[in-house]
């Protein structure tokens, strides 16, 4: 309990380093940092990472069921390819938004 509390205080103390952030003004980013580009980098990372996890789960389930029952290969192969393409397209939606919004 005391250890986790000290971790919480440590994190709060490190957040004080973010004080210069309050100096930034309103929404105009004409001469400042291009936040849209930075955010899009993080967004694409999250999308690709979670998509990778989802596809890994789908592939592992398919391979396991194929090892159990090799006779069902056509059905398993079909479901695997279909599932992978649908999961992949979710990461691609993020990519499309990035290309639409980042200047």
């Amino acid at each position, binding site marked *: 309990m005391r250890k986790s509390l000290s971790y919480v205080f440590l994190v709060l103390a490190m957040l004080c380093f973010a004080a210069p952030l309050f100096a930034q003004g309103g929404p105009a980013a004409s001469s400042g940092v291009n936040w849209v580009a930075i955010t899009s980098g993080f967004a694409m990372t999250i999308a690709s990472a979670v998509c990778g996890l989802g596809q890994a789960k789908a592939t592992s389930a398919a391979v396991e069921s194929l090892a159990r029952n090799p006779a069902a290969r056509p059905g398993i192969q079909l479901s695997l*390819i279909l599932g992978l393409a*649908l999961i992949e*397209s979710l990461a*691609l939606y993020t*990519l*499309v938004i990035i290309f639409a919004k980042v200047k």
Partner: protein
Amino acid sequence: MPEQLPFTALLNRLFGSLANSFLDVLHFKHNPLAPIGNQVAMQILVVAFLIVVFALVRARLSLDNPGGLQHVFEGIHGFVTGQSEEIIGHHSEGFTPFLVALGVFILTCNLLGVIPGFESPTAVPSVPLGCAIVAFCYYHLQGIKRQGALKYAKHFLGPMPALAILMVPIELISHTARMLSLTIRLFANMFAGDMVTLVFFSLVPVGVPIIFLGLHIGVSFLQAYIFVLLTTVYLSGAVAEEH
């Protein structure tokens, strides 16, 4: 003068005035110097090439001495028929011509971008949107033809009449989202393949982009197959009959 591919420049030189008058009649916004855009010219090329190939196959059909081309198309036909039989069930042979045409068209469009001097028409958002709208209209029309308009509309209402008020907006949105997802999946895969090859070309001009071109070719085949597979799945949902 906008940037044009060599084939587009040729088409604009030959048919420019005709295309200009046609587009003016329809009040489409276009650049008078290049009324035929790159993707339109590439699609015309793909269609002309496919017509020649299919005419060749038809002319050389033979029972005793099938050539290589006939084997390829027998393979494609058998594959699509087998898959639609597995997914849709009985009476699915009528859908094979449309599915083969759609698949071969998308595949040729995707692969055209690998050849220097040409670009993939599917790398612009409008072409996959066209394919998706065609697939959407096709499976709804087949559903209506198979089951009758009233019975087909009734299956949007869901399993119980009490849930109908909830199911109708969900079904409508999910059906339009199918079009969106088909479009974006095909467009983003082709566009991302182009972008990735360009990025690595700007980093290491020799050798490395070939790996990404190879990946792009693999993705082209896979995405054409996925488009046809998903259209088959939507068809099976539309023409399925409750037993």
